């Protein structure tokens, strides 16, 4: 197998790496690489920080291992190679009445990436995390091949789901799909005037899919105002999704300056009529709104951006409000800010979800952003919440490990399955996640 020297980065483009990268197209090639030089797998590099980076080392690009190996139309059990992309699976199977049970905010995420980050979607409150719908998977680790599932080698399974690729390469997985009515979405949008209303609206929403957009620049009485989006799948005929566009170059830094973001948010908020509205959209528009603009991360300029995402327990909602006050006062937020009610569902030792509220906000990487995120992380810790490893780029191990109560079990499993640390990546080194203390 030929290795190529490649420069790549996390989606936030703050962390970058140079690695020797192999890109196998067949299982035999993948197995040969792992026999010879075990290395961590990378996919579409849609995690924001350094979870997909192995600077100065090797990496195995799994994007060409993307075949559907079997699908049972009667039960909805889908067998796929690890590099299959979620959006592609939705495109193929939704018209036949099946959807991946959990879909993250980008359709470019691979199945193996979804497992390794135990991702959640807009239906997490009802259906749980991605890992909870994994029936089994094949894990390649050096010359060893493990077939694992929730009840088959459960310890290794829990260390692999949400485990950031540290147990080996996920070459294929069987996942349980869920029935859907078709490939269109009925989407209801309504304005929410402030923080308390937002929490209540999220708590009482009966929708299968729900997500809140927050104007993270609004202060005072308008704090926490935004738009609640609720969706249900449906069947019908609508125009095909528009052709995707691409951001051709890095935007200048003033593109996301305070007055422009304020104005944008005001218009975005005002776009939904006071009485709310219901519309019919292609599923990809609802689930993966940003995928329509390729390389949208370039809008943040060449310095990149950070996404802060935390979850706090229900009773700590006030702590989340305090965070939002700090964010609004800072004037650093971008238009991308999301509030969601999260259920308890999680499937791995290092899985992010907990019953509570999750807030995600993007910040351009500019003066003050790191200090603000630092403060938000500390507030998350005090509130008994968690930071999301798929987004994190700045935390320290000292702060992060106490948030994950099962971290010790993860470490123990790692010591058994990869004692030599072949699959170690940048995020593991930065957070020192392979040691307990």
């Amino acid at each position: 197998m030929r290795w190529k020297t490649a420069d790549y980065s996390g989606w936030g483009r703050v962390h970058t790496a140079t690695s020797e990268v192999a890109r196998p197209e067949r299982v035999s090639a993948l197995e040969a690489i792992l026999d010879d030089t075990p290395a961590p797998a990378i996919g579409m590099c849609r995690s924001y920080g350094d979870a997909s980076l192995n600077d100065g080392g090797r990496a195995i690009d799994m994007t060409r291992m993307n075949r559907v190996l079997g699908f049972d139309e009667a039960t909805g059990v889908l067998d796929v190679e690890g590099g299959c992309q979620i959006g592609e699976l939705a495109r193929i199977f939704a018209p036949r009445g099946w959807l991946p049970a959990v879909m993250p905010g980008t359709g470019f995420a691979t199945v193996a990436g979804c497992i390794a980050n135990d991702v959640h979607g807009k239906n997490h409150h009802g259906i749980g995390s991605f890992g909870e719908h994994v029936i089994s998977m094949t894990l390649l680790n050096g010359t060893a091949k493990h077939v694992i599932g929730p009840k088959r080698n459960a310890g290794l399974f829990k260390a692999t789901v949400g485990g950031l690729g540290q147990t080996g390469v996920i070459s294929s997985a069987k996942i349980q799909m869920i029935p859907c009515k078709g490939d269109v979405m009925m989407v209801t949008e309504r304005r929410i005037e402030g923080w308390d209303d937002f929490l209540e609206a999220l708590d009482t929403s009966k929708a299968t899919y729900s997500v809140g957009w927050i104007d993270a620049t609004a202060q005072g009485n308008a704090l926490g105002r935004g738009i609640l989006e609720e969706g249900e799948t449906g069947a019908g005929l609508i125009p095909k999704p528009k052709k995707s566009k691409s951001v051709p170059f890095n935007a200048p830094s003033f593109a996301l300056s305070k007055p422009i973001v304020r104005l944008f948010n005001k218009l975005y908020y005002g776009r939904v009529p006071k009485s709310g509205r219901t519309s019919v959209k292609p599923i990809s528009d609802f689930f993966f709104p940003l995928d329509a603009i390729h390389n949208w991360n370039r809008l943040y300029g060449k310095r990149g951006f950070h996404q802060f995402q935390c979850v706090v327990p229900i009773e700590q909602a006030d702590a989340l409000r305090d965070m939002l006050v700090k964010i609004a006062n800072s004037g650093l937020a971008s238009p991308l800010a999301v509030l969601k009610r999260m259920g308890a569902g999680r499937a791995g030792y290092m899985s992010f979800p907990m019953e509570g509220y999750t807030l995600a906000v993007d910040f351009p990487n500019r003066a003050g952003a790191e200090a603000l995120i630092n403060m938000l992380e500390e507030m998350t810790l005090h509130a008994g919440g968690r930071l999301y490893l798929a987004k994190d780029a700045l935390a320290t191990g000292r702060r992060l490990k106490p948030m994950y109560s099962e971290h010790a079990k993860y470490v123990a499993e790692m010591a058994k399955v990869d004692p030599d640390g072949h699959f170690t990546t940048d995020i593991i080194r930065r957070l020192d996640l392979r040691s307990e203390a």
Partner: protein
Amino acid sequence: MTETWIILGATSSMAKAFARAVSEQGHSVLLTGRDTVDLKRSAADCVAYGARVGEAMKFDARKRESFAAIIKRAKAEDGLINVAVFVGSMPPQDEIDADPSLIGGTVTDSFTGPAEFLQGIAPEMEARGGGSVVGVCSVAGDRGRIGNYVYGAAKAGFATYLSGLRNRLTRAGGHVVTVKPGFVDTGMTWGIEGMFLVAPPEKVAQDILKAVRKKKNVIYTPFFWRYIMLIIRSIPEFIFKKMSI
């Protein structure tokens, strides 16, 4: 109308993308090549993408005894039979310089093997009143260059063969598309120095499908390679022979 696509050399990423694309249109696919273990996975993929039939079969351009079973299997399906040829091998020129006997295999893989297969199935295509042949050649066949002229010569031979086959099948309602890809992002080009304007295999597959639908004769993909090669072909030989491009 139901159609069956025989894909020769189906393990390549270009072939895989093409097989998927025709599967989405509901056609049957027979995926052939040497690595049948891997081809079975691709066959399952094609069925999931909508192929009526998706099967893996052994094909080795250097073993003509592997041809008959494929032709027989295709005959068992109703409707038009189409063939897409993605086979070929390109040993580095310096290896060929060291061992000239490698030329035989290169020419068999890239030209005479698939030509013999096509010759064998052409009568059946004619009997069924048409069908399409896609022959993947290479821009390397447009002019012999110091870097890979054996591979280039084999593909040039194949291109000339396809031109003749087009002449023949057109009379029976069939059609032949000669495809000349530039640099494509495949396992073959991964990590090789000096690659530029590399096209994803899915893009090439869509270009080929469009060419089949519109009955194009010779396509370059991506399209701009037509102009790059036009320039390269126009360089007078007395200058070209001193160049190394």
